[in-house]
C-alpha cells in the first residue's frame, strides 16, 4: 500500500503514469479509507488507465467489469450453473435413492432430500462473475467497474452492497465476505448522473484535460522519441484546439496518437500542411475537422509568434519527411 501522497505519485510515475497531486491524493485516500473511487471526466483522459496502473503499482490482480446496457446480476455477480446441477442430479440418482431407502412416508423422504440441500446449492455450482470473483479471491485484487454510467439504474442497486460492505449475498448460501478488501475504481463518462446512494459510498475524482505543462510531461513519458520542439508545438496546438467549440474535444489519448503518428512520419516540427494532413488523427468528426481547418491559420499564426520570439534550429529531417507523410496517409 501507499505510504503518502508523494509515494503514490512516485509509484504511479514508475508505471509511466504522470498525475497531479489531486489524483494522487484521491488514490492515497482510497487505499487508506478502503473506499471505492468514482472517476469521472471526458473520454480519453486516462480514467481506465489510472485503475490499471494502480493495480500494477500495488501488485494486485485487475478484475474488470465492463458495463453496458442490459448488464444484469447474472453477468456481474454470480450465476447458478443449472446444467451442472442437472447433470449431478442425474449421476447421483442412485445415491439419492439410497438416501431415501429407509423413508416410510413422503414427508420423511422430503425431509431427507432437504437435508442434502446444501450439496446442490453450494459454491460448487456457482459461476462467479467479476464482482464475486474479486470478493472471494485469495489474492488482493483491484476491481475496475468500467463505464458504470452505461449500465441501467437498477444495476447500481447490486453494486451498493459490494461497494459499501465488500460482500455479496447469495440467498441460497449466505453472504460472501471479502477475504481481501479489493480496491475499487468506477469510471463514468457522465452519460447519466449516478444515484446519490452510489455516490455517497464513493470518493469522487474528476479528471479534466491536463494543463500544458502536465501534458508535456505525459507526452515525454509515453512517447519518448518525440523531440522537445515537436512536443511543445504539438501541445500548443492541442491546448488551443480544446478551446474551440468541438463535438468531440481531443484528449490525451489523441495527443499521444498524434505524436506517434508524427513520429512515424519522421516529423520534427509542425507546419500547416502537416497539421492539415494529420488532423484526422485527433479529430473524429467531419464537422470538427472543417472547423479546425478554418481555424488552422490562427493556430499556426500563434505558433509563428512564438517562433519569432525564440529562433529555433532549422529542422533537418522535415523536408525529407514530406513525401513519406503523403504516402502514409493516402
Amino acid at each position, binding site marked *: 500500500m501507499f505510504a503518502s501522497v508523494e509515494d503514490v505519485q512516485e509509484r504511479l510515475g514508475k508505471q509511466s503514469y504522470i498525475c497531479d497531486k489531486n489524483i494522487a*491524493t484521491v488514490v492515497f485516500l482510497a487505499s487508506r479509507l478502503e473506499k471505492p473511487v468514482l472517476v469521472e471526466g471526458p473520454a480519453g483522459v486516462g480514467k481506465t488507465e489510472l485503475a490499471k496502473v494502480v493495480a500494477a503499482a500495488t501488485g494486485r490482480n485487475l478484475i474488470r467489469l465492463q458495463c453496458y446496457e442490459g448488464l444484469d446480476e447474472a453477468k456481474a455477480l454470480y450465476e447458478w450453473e443449472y446444467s451442472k446441477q*442437472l447433470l449431478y442430479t442425474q449421476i447421483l440418482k442412485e445415491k439419492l435413492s439410497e438416501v431415501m431407502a429407509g423413508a416410510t412416508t413422503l414427508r420423511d423422504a422430503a425431509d431427507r432430500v432437504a437435508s442434502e440441500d446444501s450439496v446442490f446449492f453450494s459454491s460448487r455450482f456457482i459461476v462467479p462473475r467479476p464482482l464475486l470473483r474479486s470478493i472471494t479471491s485469495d489474492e488482493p485484487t483491484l476491481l475496475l467497474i468500467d463505464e458504470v454510467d452505461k449500465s*441501467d439504474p437498477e444495476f447500481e442497486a447490486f453494486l451498493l452492497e459490494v461497494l459499501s460492505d465488500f460482500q455479496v449475498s447469495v440467498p441460497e448460501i449466505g453472504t460472501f465476505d471479502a477475504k481481501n478488501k479489493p480496491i475499487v475504481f468506477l469510471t463514468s463518462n457522465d452519460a447519466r448522473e449516478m444515484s446519490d446512494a452510489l455516490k*455517497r459510498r464513493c*470518493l469522487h475524482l*474528476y479528471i479534466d484535460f491536463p494543463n500544458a505543462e502536465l501534458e508535456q510531461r505525459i507526452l515525454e513519458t509515453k512517447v519518448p522519441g518525440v523531440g522537445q520542439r515537436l512536443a511543445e508545438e504539438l501541445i500548443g496546438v492541442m491546448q488551443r484546439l480544446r478551446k474551440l467549440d468541438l463535438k468531440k474535444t481531443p484528449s490525451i489519448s489523441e495527443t499521444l496518437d498524434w505524436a506517434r503518428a508524427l513520429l512515424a512520419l519522421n516529423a520534427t516540427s509542425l507546419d500547416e500542411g502537416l497539421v492539415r494532413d494529420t488532423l484526422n488523427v485527433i479529430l473524429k468528426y467531419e464537422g470538427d475537422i472543417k472547423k479546425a481547418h478554418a481555424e488552422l491559420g490562427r493556430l499556426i499564426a500563434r505558433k509563428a509568434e512564438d517562433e519569432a520570439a525564440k529562433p529555433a534550429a532549422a529542422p533537418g529531417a522535415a523536408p525529407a519527411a514530406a513525401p513519406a507523410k503523403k504516402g502514409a496517409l493516402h
Partner: protein
Amino acid sequence: MQQKLIDFTNLLRKSGVRVSVAETLDAFAALDEVSIGDREVFKDALRTTMVKRGDDIAAFEHLFDLYWSAFYDGLRDAFDKAAEGAGGGKLDLEALMRQIQEGLEKLPGAAPDLSELAKALLTQDLSKLEQLIREAAQQAGVGRIENMLQVGFFTRRTMEQMDAEGAGRQLRDLARQLRDAGMPDAQVDALMELVERYLDALRQSVRQFTERELQQRNYDYMEKFRRESLLEKSFYNLTEDEIRMMREVVTRLAHRIKNILSIRKRRLRKGKLDLHTMLRRNMAHGGVPFEVIYKHRKKDRPKLVILCDVSSSVANVSRFMLQFVYQLQECFNKIRSYVFVSELGEVTQLFKDLEVSQAIDKALDGGDVINVYTRSNFGHAFHDFWRNHLAAIDNKTTVLVLGDARNNYNDPRAWCLREVHNKAKNVVWLNPESPSAWGFGDSVMDKYRPYVDVAEECRNLRQLSRIVDKLVL
C-alpha cells in the same frame, strides 16, 4: 478544527451542494490520513469526500477559498502590517515582548487578569483570534446578514460581543502598570502604540469577516437564482450570454429525457412467449424451460415532421425548440424539417450537412430557401405544405408545428391543416403565447385548434421538456 469543518459543511449545503452526514465523517477520516499542512492535499481530501458532482466543483472551489484561506490570510496581513508600522517601522517586536515578559515577572503582586482576547492580541495568537471572532460573530448573528448596509452594524455588534473595548482597556492598564514597575518610557509608549494598532487591525478583520459572510450568502443566492431562472425564463428575452448557457441546459435536459426514455422503452419490451428462442436457450437444461424468453415487442420510433415559424417574433423560441428536438434525434426514426414565414421551404438537408447549432442559425435565416423578411402567413404556408409535401406524412408521423399563429389577418385556410391531421398520427402545436391569448387579435389559433391533437403553451425550458416527453412516447 472539528467545528470549523462542520461549519464548512453547512455552508456547502446552503449553497446547494448535497453533503450527507456519512460524507462529513469520511472527510474527518480522510483528514486523519493526510497532513493538513499541505493546502492542496487538504483541499483535495475535502473535495473527494464531500463533492460528488462535477457541476458542484466550481462552487466548492469558490467557497473553499472564501472559507479556509481568505480570512486567515487577511487576519495575518492586517496584524503584520500593524506590527510593521509600529514605532515608525523600527520596532523590534521580539525584544519588546521579551521585556514585557520580564516586566510582568517583576510586577508586584499577582499579574493582572487579562481576557482571552487581550492575551491573544498581545501574543498575536492568530488562530485563537480567528476562533474568538468566529464565536463572537455567531453570537452577534452575523449569519443573518442580508445586504451591504448591515456590514457596519454587525461589525460593531461583533466587536461588542467579544468586548474589544474591555480588552483594549486591560492592555492599556497593563502598560501603565509596567511603567509603574519601572519599565522605560520609550518601551511603554511603543507598547501603547502597538495596542492601538492591534485594536485597529482587529476592527478591520472583523469587518472583513462580516463582508465575507455576506459574500458567502450572496454566492449561494445568486447561483440558485441563475439556475432556477434559466429554466423558467421566457425565450423571448435572453441575452447572448444566456443563450450560450441555455444551450448547455438544453443539452443536459435532452440527455436526461433520453435516459428516461430508454428505461421506459425497456419496460415496454416484454411481449409474447418466444418458443423458438426459449427452446434453444434452454437446451443446456435438458429442454426444461428454466429461462423464459419473451418476444420483444418492437416499439416504433415515431417519424417527425417539423413545421417551424421563423419570423422574427418567435425566432428565439424556435431556436431552442429546434435544438432540443435535434438533440433527441436518436429517439425518432426520421425527422424532416420545414421552415416558413409566408413561403415554406424544406431544410432537412441543412441539418444533415451542418452541425446542429450552425444548421439552426442557418434555418432561422431562411436557409436560402425562403424569404424571411415577409409577414407571417400561416394559411399560405400550410397550403404550400398540403400541395407539395403531403407525401412526407404517413400514419406513423407526428407533425410538430412551432409558431404563434399570428396570421396578420390573412386567410387561415384551416382545411389544409385538417387534411394533414387526417393523414398523420397526430399533430402537436407548440405556441409561445399563453392559451388565454389564443384567438384574440390576429391570432388564428382557435381556427386551427380543432385539428390539433395536442396544443401546448411552450415558452420556457421547463414547459418544453415536459412536452417533448409526451412527444416521443
